[in-house]
């Protein structure tokens, strides 16, 4: 099999040389981190006051973990290592408590991130000859813009169509003879289900590849996508705290994702003890960003569960491979690629006087897409007998939720006492999506 490289020298470095680069960049990142109020304190507490206090990669283990709450507590500038005038882009996620998680990029940071995406795209065999339809949401979410600039750097013809509007997506695939897609697996399956009604016939499309990410999916789902569309589907991994997509990507062999280890230090830990586990053992992914100076992140607990392959890949790359994401250590839900925490929903519901305190979050599949239903009990004293007012209430709750969690849930009103009552720790989330 032809194995294309973007930067063969770096991608095939022997382990010792790779670790030498890692150490140099790790020390550099510690220097930048020390400029921030957050890490200044954190690193001082373990005796690291200058990069000279880092002698080897083993010193990584001395540094306390960083968690998502740290990023929120540091809002807005506690983790910023440069002057705001040097920041050229901000990305953000909505966060669970209304305080957003903000990520800052300086010009060079974007350049290095973009290069990782060019490397990722090239590793799949895609090239400047391809027409790339980027179906991820643009804007504050890193998925859209990240791949966009990476694809431009490779020289692909980029169609920045963004998410949604199935009719236009399909028409665009036909009109421009798109060859490569970037999309969530569930949306791609939904698009496929609409081919017939949109009059797509075999031979109308020129698709060869899809980059799929932003939501967990099984190997069966990948095979299904590949069989139905007659394409190759490549798994992708990333999160905005670590720049966004391009932390790890599959190569032409499609046997799990190479973590770009010159840009990220990866650890797999036992989420209970915080101790590193052996390659091959499942645990929580912990990542250190080696390439972003504006906002350094050291030992970030992703809450994603996965394992590292101990054995090398046939492609010749020396960067270790990460399994698909097997689960989460928290209760975060991923609905059609969007991260949703139950606490975000609870916070909004509890502010509505017409609803009682009991609620239920229900997730299932409608066709290929996830469907989120929020069930609430109405407060009897505020029922004045008018159906129109209840409809208005439903709409109001839906809009309130949408402002917080981005997606628009179905809202159901229920009689008091009809939803399961909390006994100790209430089971508020019922996820009936098939795990296949």
């Amino acid at each position, binding site marked *: 099999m032809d194995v294309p490289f973007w930067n063969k020298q770096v991608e095939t470095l022997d382990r010792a040389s790779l670790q030498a680069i890692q150490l140099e960049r790790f020390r550099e990142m510690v220097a930048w981190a020390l400029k921030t109020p957050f890490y200044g304190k954190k690193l001082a507490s373990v005796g690291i006051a200058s990069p000279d206090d880092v002698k080897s990669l083993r010193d990584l283990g001395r540094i306390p973990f960083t968690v998502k709450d740290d990023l929120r507590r540091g809002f807005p500038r506690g983790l910023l290592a440069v002057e705001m005038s040097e920041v050229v882009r901000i990305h953000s996620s909505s966060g669970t408590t209304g305080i957003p998680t903000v990520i800052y990029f300086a010009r060079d940071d974007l350049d290095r991130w973009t290069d990782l995406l060019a490397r990722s795209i090239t590793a799949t065999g895609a090239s400047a000859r391809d027409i790339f339809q980027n179906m991820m949401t643009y804007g504050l979410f890193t998925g859209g813009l990240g791949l966009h600039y990476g694809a431009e750097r490779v020289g692909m013809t980029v169609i920045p169509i963004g998410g949604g509007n199935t009719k236009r997506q399909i028409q665009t695939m036909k009109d421009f003879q798109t060859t490569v897609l970037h999309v969530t697996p569930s949306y791609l399956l939904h698009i496929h289900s609409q081919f017939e009604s949109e009059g797509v016939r075999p031979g109308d499309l020129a698709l060869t590849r899809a980059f799929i990410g932003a939501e967990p999916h099984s190997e069966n789902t990948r095979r299904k996508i590949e069989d139905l569309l007659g394409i190759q589907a490549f798994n992708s991994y990333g999160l905005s705290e670590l720049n966004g997509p391009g932390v790890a990507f599959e190569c032409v062999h499609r046997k799990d994702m190479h973590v770009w280890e010159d840009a990220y230090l990866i650890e797999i830990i036992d989420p209970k003890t915080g101790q590193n586990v052996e390659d091959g053992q499942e645990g929580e992914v912990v990542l250190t960003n080696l390439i972003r100076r504006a906002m350094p992140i050291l030992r970030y607990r992703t809450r994603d569960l996965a394992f590292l392959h101990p054995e090398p890949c046939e492609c010749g790359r020396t960067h270790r491979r990460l399994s698909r994401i097997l689960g989460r250590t928290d209760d975060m839900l991923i609905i059609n690629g969007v991260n949703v925490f139950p606490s975000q929903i609870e916070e909004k519901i509890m502010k509505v006087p017409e609803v009682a305190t009991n609620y239920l979050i229900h997730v299932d599949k409608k066709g290929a897409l996830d469907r989120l239903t929020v069930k609430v009990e*109405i407060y*009897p004293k505020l*029922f*004045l*007998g*008018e*159906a129109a007012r*209840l*409809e208005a209430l*439903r709409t109001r709750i839906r809009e309130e939720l949408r402002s917080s969690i981005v997606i628009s849930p*179905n*809202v*159901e*009103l*229920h*009689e*008091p*006492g*009809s939803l399961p009552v909390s006994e100790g720790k209430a089971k508020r989330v019922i996820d009936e999506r098939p795990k296949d």
Partner: protein
Amino acid sequence: MKITQISVFLENRKGRLYDVCSLLGANHVNIRALTIAETESFGVLRIVVDKCDAAVKLLRDNGFVANFTDVVAVEVPDTPGGLATVLKIFADNDVNVEYMYGFVEKHSDKALLVFRFEDTDTAQQVLARHSISIVTRQEIEGL
């Protein structure tokens, strides 16, 4: 004279309407008029009964969300155009009807209709001025 309608919130669950009706039936409450406002996800049952206060207490004691709404029951000639005559009076006098529905049973040769008005007091004055007879609470209870 206003009469009282009971509004009951019905979530979208099998047998919920039956639950209400069987509860009322078992306690000898007679439903005089009935309609359901339905939406895609829930319904509101609107009933006029003979023993209104007792019925609401009964419903609430059994976990239903129920409340009172003022409505007016009107006698309309049970002939073609009977309802139109009354509605014309409302239209001419700027009386807005939010919703209306018919009675379950007939009271002599007149049809009985329940109206929910935007402004119940004004509506009653207009009805009185045009000598349209309004059914009293006592009459409802005795039906």
